[in-house]
């Protein structure tokens, strides 16, 4: 059971709008899986589908080796999640909220354990204050405490640093690293900021307009020697066919409508160029991207810009 989450061909349509489009990815045990994309890219919708808040239009989700659809409660017992703002009951205290959600998770937790959990997130001294008096950062920390209280194996955090000050962001980052390194949790965390994901993720998935752009280990994605290359041709189908049969197959990244994306060693760009010519592919452009950030910004700031860039 090394794969904690296995998503295959997941799609979600809201009337005419496709929020998630044929998305597949795998989160392995122990991963800090970074889910990267602009606001509205489909991150939240995907996470909500993993948590059964939204029903997929199509596709399969397996978690902990079980189909999510039939094993909802058993799976969710092992999941802790904060989706968007960590909203809790404002008329209850931090302690009361924590206790309430712990009960809902189906476990009995001692007073000490609850208090301890509040200490972990630095809210022990505010345990009996009503949540309506809390700052955004405190609510976020309480939300995480609630996600952690039943000791889940998988933690899903949707934009956990939204609305936090730099200190708050650092706190959350340290907490995620602590949970991963010292407690061996698997963590799925989303953000629209590359810099955040870069610092904590072991694996990264970039999505845009509901489609997967790229999925790889952080190590290779953030390796300065690796370069993303975008190829535009007159005949994409032919080009793709040729490339898939060549040595470049392993470098293949996600297909886009009118582009082929490869990730290769910087040194090999000239070899690729030569091969394309040799394979009789009619090239319009071959565009190397210098870093992931450059690439991410470019793919996620709208297709108009991409086109401009290409021309």
């Amino acid at each position, binding site marked *: 059971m090394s794969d904690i989450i296995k998503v295959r061909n997941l799609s979600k349509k809201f009337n005419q709008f496709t929020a998630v489009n044929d998305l597949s990815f795998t989160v392995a045990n122990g991963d800090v899986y970074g889910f990267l994309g602009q606001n509205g890219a489909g991150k939240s919708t995907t996470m909500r589908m993993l948590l059964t808040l939204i*029903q997929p239009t199509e596709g399969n989700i397996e978690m902990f080796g079980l189909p999510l659809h039939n094993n909802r409660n058993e799976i969710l017992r092992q999941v802790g999640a904060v989706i968007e703002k960590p909203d809790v009951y404002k008329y209850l205290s931090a302690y009361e909220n924590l206790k309430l959600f712990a009960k*809902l998770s189906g476990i009995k937790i001692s007073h000490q354990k609850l208090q301890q959990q509040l200490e972990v997130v630095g809210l022990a001294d505010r345990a009996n204050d009503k949540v309506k008096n809390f700052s955004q950062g405190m609510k976020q920390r309480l*939300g995480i405490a609630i996600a952690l209280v039943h000791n889940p194996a998988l933690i899903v955090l949707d934009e956990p640093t939204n609305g936090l000050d730099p200190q708050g962001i650092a706190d959350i980052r340290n907490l995620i690293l602590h949970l991963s390194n010292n407690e061996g949790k698997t963590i799925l965390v989303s953000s629209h900021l590359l810099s955040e994901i870069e610092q904590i993720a072991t694996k990264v998935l970039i999505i845009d307009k509901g489609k997967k752009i790229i999925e790889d280990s952080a190590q290779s994605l953030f390796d300065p020697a690796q370069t993303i290359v975008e190829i535009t041709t007159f005949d994409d189908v032919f080009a793709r066919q040729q490339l898939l049969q060549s040595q470049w197959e392993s470098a293949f990244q996600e297909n886009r409508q009118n582009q082929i994306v490869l990730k290769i060693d910087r040194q090999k760009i000239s070899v690729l160029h030569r091969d394309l010519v040799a394979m009789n592919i009619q090239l319009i452009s071959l565009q190397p991207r210098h870093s992931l950030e450059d690439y991410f910004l470019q793919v996620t700031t709208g297709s108009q810009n991409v086109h401009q860039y290409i021309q």
Partner: protein
Amino acid sequence: MWTLLQIELYKIFRRPRTYIAFAAITSLIAIVQLGLKVDGKEYADFVMADFKNSFSIDGNTLNGYFVCYILLQLLLVHVPLLIALIAADMISGEANGGTLRFLLTKPVSRFNFIMAKFLAATIYTIALLIWLAILALFVSMFIFGTGDMLLLKNSYVVQLQQDDIFWRYSGAFGFAALAMTTVAALGFFLSQFAENSIGPIVATMSVIIFFTILSTMSIPLFNLVKPYLFTTHMVSWKEFFDIRVDENNATIKGSIEHPERIVRSVAILAVHILLFVGASLFIFKKKDVLS
């Protein structure tokens, strides 16, 4: 399920809003009781003016039983609004507060979730009615004393013997609990269609006000739809206070003139509850939580 119910009740009774209804009922009843205590004779004379033209009524008509009847008649029309305040907020309130998505990521089936919430709303409704019964019946009995009850109905007058009344109130309150649960079910049903609680609360109130007006007005066109409106059946608690007479026109103790009307209304209200809750379950099970 029990844990879920406990949690829902805990949430209801920890909210200040819950107590608005209790406070409203308390103050309304207290004011009516005070008014009747001070000027009750005039009120009774006013109500019975027509009857007193041809008959002289001797004795304390304004006793606790009668006061309770007045209170129920006044309040049971408005209690639905107080029920809506909580019931129509059950789901929409959670959606609005953002807690719904937190709750539904917990290992709790949506069926259980809905049932626990509806049961909690029902318990709140019943608690409100018990409070109403304590104030309207027991406190009135204490303040105004007991005795026979003289009731003016549309086309006749009913006199109930004092030892033939209490069980009727038990039945009436039981019936009212069912009627109010219907309101709770309606509010509950509407509450899943919005992400703020104002909409469903206002919608529930509007439906009830609208239907009640149709039920009240004796216009032939409206009379056609009346039997199908649940508001028409919500007042059937009054049937408990109508008594059968024998061939000498003397009342038969312990009897009800139209028990079949009570049975019919109970059935119609129960069907409404089942429909509302069933529809809630059906829709909520498939609902995408986007709040």
